């Protein structure tokens, strides 16, 4: 058997097609870290905006005003020697100051008699106000009441009053920027969070009262759930602000970013994560997405658990001083995990290619006849080919991990390989060495991809001309099935019932591994992330059941391949 395996390894290694594939994987292995390093270097040398040219080139009066407000804001910070990047005053208040100035500019344009359409055509004015953070309470009021439409409904005397109010706010903002220290900023945040929390608490009380009048009303139950979720969100947000304030966290540190990027992002979208994905629940009084309240409640519980696990991991990170890789400036660990994950897809395709070509080449060249007239059973010959696929998969995976570890470890500034990865297992948070986590994830990825590999191997072993078709179909299935599954699952949750017991959602079980932090962080919760980020899969499918289903399919495909090959007639 050893001789047979050695033969197959040599034959595969000498195959031009496989050599090209190996070189391609090696090239991607090098390009991924080097490319991201190069992109970061380019980003660091970004040229500041030339506002004078932008204003000169801008044809509309509104546009000129807009760029003028940006220029003014930049000038204010420059005049006061406030560094552009990494200074909390610039980061947190540039947009606020510029938005307030633009608000004032729109009022002035109204006073000059400019057409409302001209403003509307340039941009949605309300979007400007949406980012105000200086005085959130006032900013929120402005964004809801004083949007650009309402500005154009104002009488002249009201415009004058609003202009004075805007001047006052701009002055307050500038004054705050120049006089406050970061502790004041934290305090300001904490106060605003406290107000939001109190508001949410009142909303829950009101929803409870509404439900008590008609306890069986499903829409009111839903509204209470929503209010409670909002309260949970505000409580989380308050926790984050309190953590930052109490610990006087350094601005821009990983702790600060963890609160902003994860805690605040989850808080801001908490209701969306937990309830809103299927807001159609009450749309038009029809239950579009759920059969019943219980059905909806079950989904909500799963969503809530996923979010709560992420919150728990994030809090653990902050309280135990274990930075999440997502929050490091340039984490070698995060890049390593992501790069390995990306390149492993190619390794899986390599295994598919080897599985498809190993028998196809024998049939197409006719060498199968000389191979089978040896004192070795067909079972042993096929097994040696299968083990060669495994061999190349494992060796390539180990090489990929080693190369990426070396390159990512060298090229990224945060050498955080020694920091453990945080995982939720059995309701407990555990710390696991990064390399071990990557190795486990890779092993699971290779295992689950073996469903396709076994299927391709089966086609290749039994059909003389099936190899190339099998490779194409297998690679396509590997690349497309998972996103297609997620899109299907997203578009119609009832698909779940059909898909759960098929192998399709489990062709890459590694997507179910690791914590969900990246899926919830960075305000990233978009449709794309929802579909491709893995959260849908995590919520809807059971990876343990998936492992059993995958193992069953692998055994089935290989069983048919071995039986069929043993019985196959080899004709001239």
């Amino acid at each position, binding site marked *: 058997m050893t001789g*047979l395996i050695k033969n197959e390894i040599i*034959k595969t290694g000498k195959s*031009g097609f496989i050599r090209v594939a190996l070189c391609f994987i090696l090239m991607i292995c090098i390009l991924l870290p080097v490319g991201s390093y190069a992109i970061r270097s380019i980003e660091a040398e970004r040229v500041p905006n030339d506002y004078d040219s932008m204003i000169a080139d801008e044809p509309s009066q509104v546009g000129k005003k807009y760029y003028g407000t940006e220029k003014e804001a930049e000038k204010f910070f420059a005049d006061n020697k406030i560094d552009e990047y990494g200074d909390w005053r610039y980061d947190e208040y540039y947009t606020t100051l510029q938005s307030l100035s633009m608000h004032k500019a729109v009022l002035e344009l109204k006073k000059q008699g400019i057409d409302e359409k001209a403003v509307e055509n340039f941009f949605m004015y309300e979007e400007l106000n949406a980012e105000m953070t200086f005085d959130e309470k006032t900013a929120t009021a402005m964004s809801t009441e004083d949007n650009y439409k309402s500005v154009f409904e104002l009488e002249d005397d009201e415009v004058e009053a609003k202009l004075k109010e805007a001047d006052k706010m701009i002055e307050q903002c500038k004054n705050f920027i120049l006089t406050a220290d970061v502790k004041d900023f934290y305090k300001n945040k904490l106060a605003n969070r406290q107000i939001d929390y109190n508001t949410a608490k009142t909303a829950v009380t009101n929803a409870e009262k509404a439900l008590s009048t008609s306890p069986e009303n499903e829409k009111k139950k839903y509204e209470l759930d929503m209010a409670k979720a909002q309260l949970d969100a505000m409580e989380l947000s308050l926790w984050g602000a309190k953590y930052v304030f109490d610990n006087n966290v350094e601005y821009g540190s990983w702790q600060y970013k963890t609160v902003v990027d994860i805690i605040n992002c989850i808080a801001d979208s908490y209701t969306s994560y937990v309830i809103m994905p299927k807001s159609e629940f009450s749309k038009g009084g029809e239950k579009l997405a759920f059969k019943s309240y219980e059905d909806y409640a079950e989904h909500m519980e799963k969503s809530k658990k996923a979010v709560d696990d992420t919150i728990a991991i994030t809090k653990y990170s902050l309280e135990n001083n274990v930075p999440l890789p997502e929050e490091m400036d340039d984490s070698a660990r995060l890049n390593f995990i992501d790069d390995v994950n990306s390149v492993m897809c190619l390794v899986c395709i390599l295994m598919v290619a080897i599985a498809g070509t190993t028998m196809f080449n024998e049939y197409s060249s006719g060498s199968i006849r*000389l191979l089978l*007239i040896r*004192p070795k059973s067909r079972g042993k010959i096929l097994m040696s080919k299968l083990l060669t696929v495994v061999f190349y998969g494992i060796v390539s995976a180990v090489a990929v991990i080693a190369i990426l570890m070396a390159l990512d470890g060298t090229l990224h500034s945060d050498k955080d390989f020694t920091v453990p990865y945080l995982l939720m297992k059995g309701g407990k948070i555990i710390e696991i060495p990064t390399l071990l986590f990557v190795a486990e994830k890779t092993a699971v990825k290779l295992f689950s991809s073996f469903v396709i590999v076994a299927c391709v191997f089966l086609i290749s072993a039994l059909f003389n001309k099936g190899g190339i078709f099998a490779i194409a179909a297998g690679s396509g299935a590997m690349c497309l099935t998972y996103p297609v599954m997620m899109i299907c699952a997203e578009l119609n949750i009832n698909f779940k019932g059909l898909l759960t017991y098929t192998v399709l959602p489990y062709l890459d079980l590694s997507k179910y591994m690791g914590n969900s932090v990246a899926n919830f962080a960075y305000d990233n919760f978009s449709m794309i992330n929802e579909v491709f980020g893995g959260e849908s899969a995590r919520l809807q499918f059971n990876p343990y059941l998936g492992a059993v289903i995958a193992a069953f399919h692998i055994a089935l495909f290989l069983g048919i391949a071995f039986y069929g090959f043993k019985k196959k007639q*080899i004709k001239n």
Partner: protein
Amino acid sequence: MILGLLKIDEGQISICGCDVKNDFENAIANVGGIIENPEMYKNLTGKENLMQYARMYKNITKERIDEVVKIVGLEGRINDKISKYSLGMRQRLGIAQAILHKPKLLVLDEPTNGLDPDGIKQLREIFFNITRKEKSAVLVSSHMLAELDLMCDRIGIIDRGRLVDIKTMNEIRTVSDEEMNEYEAELEGAEEFLKANNIAFEIRDNGRFAFSCKKSEIPAFVKSAVENGVSIYALVPKQKTLEEAYMETTSHNVKGGVGV
């Protein structure tokens, strides 16, 4: 079927006492084979290909590989990739892989397919050498009857999937005493003698006389011809060809195959 490539529908094939169906590994360990053109791994060299097959047997040394390379006369090109080999060279490499493990039986299926006359002659010589040096029995399956005629000692004729006859080449070529046979003779002054004795004859393009008679009549014919002043330079009996034997055995059926 003998090599295990096709399913054995009925009957039994035994090689050195081992049943091909039930004891394949032991049975096939005694067999080497070439099936039509020996297709091997084109991206490997000749030697690497031989190494591939050597690893599937026990105790095949590097010296043995060098030995078979020498037998088939590929010493100068054995380290070239076989994609650069001519058909004849690949055929010789095919023989090398077949005899690598000193098989007791060598099975060759259409071994001269696609070879030029020079290649066919070389191949034939190699086979003769192998049977002498390696003491292997060689089973050739082919439709090239003229080639088999030159190559084989014993012939088995298969008609519609059934083995209908087995004969040695001597048996095919030998004519019985009382059987009419054609003779070709180089004679001088024989025309009148033949006419006088009522022997039907024709004169071939090479000037020889062709006539038919029984083998038992030849001594009397020679004596009488000489006494009548005919000079006899050659008298050659026409031998039966394999094709004729095949056609007789299969009742002019064009389908079928010949081996041995």
